[in-house]
């Protein structure tokens, strides 16, 4: 299973974290510190796997961002590597050629998307189309609620004029 997902920028800034195993706040910062040290210092053309404290971390760099997922020793590393790519493709389709800035200003959306891809540290949906459809449905639910709220407050505003 995937124990956690980390998105770190080349400068070591955290862009997204998701923990599927219980880690306290302290442990979380320690893990991030340690792993960004290990992963950011790795050169290009090396494997995408790092052995770390009895776990394995599968990572891949996309432009300035490192996507990392921590798994058990005997999990299938390549499968996870392609989950990362699958997630990136979905983000790309959603934001339209995603860049780090998209993820910074819309980090909450990245969380929505991740929740449609992974649950309990396992892959939930392998169809990009289905994920895109579900996210769009959620977005429209939020939009509708906003419009409703606006129209109601408009009405109240008008009525109390």
């Amino acid at each position, binding site marked *: *299973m995937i124990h956690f997902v980390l998105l770190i920028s080349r400068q070591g*800034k*955290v*862009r997204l*974290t*998701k*923990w599927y195993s*219980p*880690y*306290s*706040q302290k442990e979380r*910062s320690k893990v991030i510190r340690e792993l960004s040290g290990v992963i950011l210092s790795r050169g290009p*053309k*090396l*494997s*995408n796997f790092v*052995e770390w404290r*009895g776990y394995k971390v599968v990572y891949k760099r996309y432009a300035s961002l490192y996507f990392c997922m921590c798994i058990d*020793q005997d999990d*299938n*590393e*390549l*499968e996870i*590597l*392609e*989950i990362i*790519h*699958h997630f990136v493709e979905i983000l790309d389709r*959603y*934001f*339209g050629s995603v860049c780090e800035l998209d993820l*910074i*200003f*819309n*980090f*909450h*959306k990245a*969380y929505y998307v991740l*929740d449609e891809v992974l*649950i*309990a540290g*396992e*892959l*939930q*949906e*392998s*169809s*990009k*189309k*289905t994920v895109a459809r*579900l996210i769009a*449905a*959620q*977005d429209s*639910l*939020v*939009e509708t*609620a*906003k419009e409703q*709220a606006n129209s109601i407050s408009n009405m109240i505003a008008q009525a109390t004029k």
Partner: protein
Amino acid sequence: MALSGMRGLSVFISDVRNCPNKEQERVRVDKELGNIRTRFKNEKGLTPYEKKKYVWKMLYIYMLGYDVDFGHMEAVSLISAPKYPEKQVGYIVTSCLLNENHDFLRLAINTVRNDIIGRNETFQCLALTMVGNIGGREFAESLAPDVQKLLMLSSCRPLVRKKAALCLLRLYRKNPDVVNVDGWSDRMAQLLDERDLGVLTSVMSLLVALVSNNHDVYWSCLPKCVKILERLARNQDVPQEYTYYGIPSPWLQVKTMRALQYFPAIEDPNIRRSLFEVLQRILMGTDVVKNVNKNNASHAVLFEALALVMHLDAEKEMMSQCVALLGKFIAVREPNIRYLGLENMTRMLMVADVQDIIKRHQAQIITSLKDPDISIRRRALDLLYGMCDVTNAKDIVEELLQYLSTADFAMREELALKAAILAEKFAPDLSWYVDVILQLIDKAGDFVSDDIWFRVVQFVTNNEDLQPYAAAKAKEYMDKPALHETMVKVSAYLLGEYSHLLVRRPGCSPKEIFSIIHEKLPTVSTTTIPILLSTYAKIMMHTQPPDPELQDHIWAIFNKYESCIDVEIQQRAVEYFALSRKGAALMDILAEMPKFPERQSSLLKKAEDTEIDTAEQSAIKLRSQQQMSNALVVTDQRPSNGSLPVGQLSLVKMPSISSNADANAADEVLAHANGTLSKVDPQPATPSPDLLGDLLSPLAIEGPPGAAVSAQQNVVPGLEGVPNAADALALAPVGEQSNSIQPIGNIAERFHALCLKDSGVLYEDPYIQIGTKAEWRAHHGRLVLFLGNKNTSPLVSVKALILPPAHLKLELSLVPETIPPRAQVQCPLEVANLRPSRDLAVLDFSYMFGTTPVNVKLRLPAVLNKFLQPITLAGEEFFPQWRSLSGPPLKLQEVVRGVKPLSLPEMSNLFNSFHVVVAPGLDPNPNNLVASTTFFSESTRAMLCLIRVETDPSDRTQLRMTVASGDPILTYELKEFIKEQLISIPTPTPVPAVASAPAPTSPVNSVMDPGAMLAGLL
């Protein structure tokens, strides 16, 4: 894509991003936290939109690494908001900020449950997602049935169903005891018929979790998994959106093959055939392509297929295909594939047949040891370690040593440890071993633990041939200018002990040796100086005739350290100085160290302790099963000084003559007992001693399977005539020794050792170690069983059953069904002794490792002598008691023949070891022994027992023994117990030979050869 943003949030994020340095960022963040805190305090004025915005800001700040210790309540409370936008934020932020151990989550359980059982699909999804991501025990307790119902509901749409499956997976994985999955095999089989591949992926993950815990009940899922795999591999009926770079859902393929690896074997020939067809297609049909993602995905499937083939232990042809593939992989340019090739080759080592094929790739693997990627280097090191045996040890270890000089810091310790272990296990000769370790210390002294050089000293001390060589090597190193301190220690020790063997060589006079060692003294720390002082004392002792100049020099050094602040140094200096003035007596005091008792290599133990890597573990396991090199085995066979042979109820049968005599004697006793003592009746009659020997011998219980079977056939017919239930119990294990798992160490020896001490290992195999620790007080005892799982996967279906003899009341506390990975559980066993008896309690212990059931029956060391407490009596107390207990049944006398010949002090020690104290000088005849002890049981209370043994100096193999106590059963049992101890003769290991030999021959030899016996005893 329009970003329906929150302006406040975006502004805050830009502000943080625009901060030129960390301090200003902190100022900005603190300001925002203060703002949020005040806004939350006055919650009434907060619109849902604002609340949502602040909660997001909190998450952002949290993500940046700042402590957010408030506002959890607000996040959780958003979950119960009526509208989707707020609820969504509540769920997501809660599952990011909190983990399953937070108390706040409890507040949300009701709302979450309402969302799950409610009709709103979008709410169901949110709730299932959160529980799936952070659900803990309380969630499992209150929500599992609802989630299970939802998963099976026919009206449940795919988007909800897949979430329900993973949510259930989480609850089950975390708390398998809480989630009731009885009867789920049918439901899982039904769920596997699902056509929607998204749902099927989630369901398959759930199945993996279920079968990994208990595959037995999910047999009906197996054919369905094979069907799904066929469907995907043939690309039949797979919608376009579920193909990934042209490959039908690689993830589902991987998961399905993972699930199949939890079933022990596939019996149905049709299913097996179709599965192998699919696997064959994957193995042969996977090509390297240009597109990275396609390549990764297809190789993910390929590696999983390899794992499944290894698991199914497929036909040889398929297996060699796999090795060929792996051989190709470890040489490709793509680093991921190289890494996985090495990793899987290490796993493959478990399949014994392929080792030779893997060895062909040795050169390539050694090249990987120099790979730029540390992950790959680690894999290569593990693989080399795993594939090393007597044939290639020299090459591999030398390669490792060479690599040590350039290896990065992070790997050196592991490298040094592994080189040391391999050198020890597979050394073609001992001088090579010494060479390797000295080189190791020279190159990586910082990483060579004391264990390693202690081991060198042990080997050298125990092998005379090696001593001059080792001393010469040590001198060579000492001649070098800069040395690691560990090298100074080991060289100084070796030169102190053995430099006199070099005395004829040039430059090796005592004086010269002394001066090269003494040169190093100013450079070493206080822990090394004591070793140097010992070395000086030894050199002085070996210098014959004494060299006054050298002597004065060394005395001066001792004088100098007499007032050293370090106690150890000071004490040695003072003592050596005083001792060295004793002249000739010095020779005795400082003589060479005696041979060390052979002990388990602490290196291997240490290696096992530090292992975490499963692949590595498999290699170590493999190691322990392999033949070791002959060079070291020779020393291993030396009888160990430490083990006390007294408790050994060995398999040696009595010589036929004395056996008959004893049988007669036993018959007499029996007749006696039956005739006069009705009380003895419940106590089963004792069969003749040689039969007893068979029953209690290690052979009958723990011999190798083949031998055990024949022994059983020999013994059973004899036994059937004997209505002796209790003794039959001791035999019970014989028939059931069909385990494929071999125990580590000799179970019988472990048991006998534990009869005389109170803590130690009772049983060990590659997966589990059972230790015991006992405390005995009067007739009560508490024996704690320590069940330690040595692996990184859980041991399941653990069962421990006590088969108690009639005289013991045994209560074993609950033994958990599952022992988590690398965990140890303690199970106390309360013991109460009701009556005197020599019968044994047996522990019937079983567990499953993966798919292998293991069952062992172990004798428990709750034996008669545990209820004895030593008591020393003076003559005036002893004799009145002795006289008052007159004649049978309270006082029994017997002539015992076939006793192992022991000197009187040895016999006293033997008696003392089971708490019977010999009172010296009470008996005027120096050939006799008088001893006493107190026995505790519920029926007898504390009862004094007196023993007198009259030995025959002209024939040590016979003696007359008299035992007296206030209870006839006790007298009889104690007499028999002591007799068992006296007539048992520990034999050297070759059990089967003795087993096949009929009674008279081999034991006679043993009895005839007291030298051999003494060797066994010491």
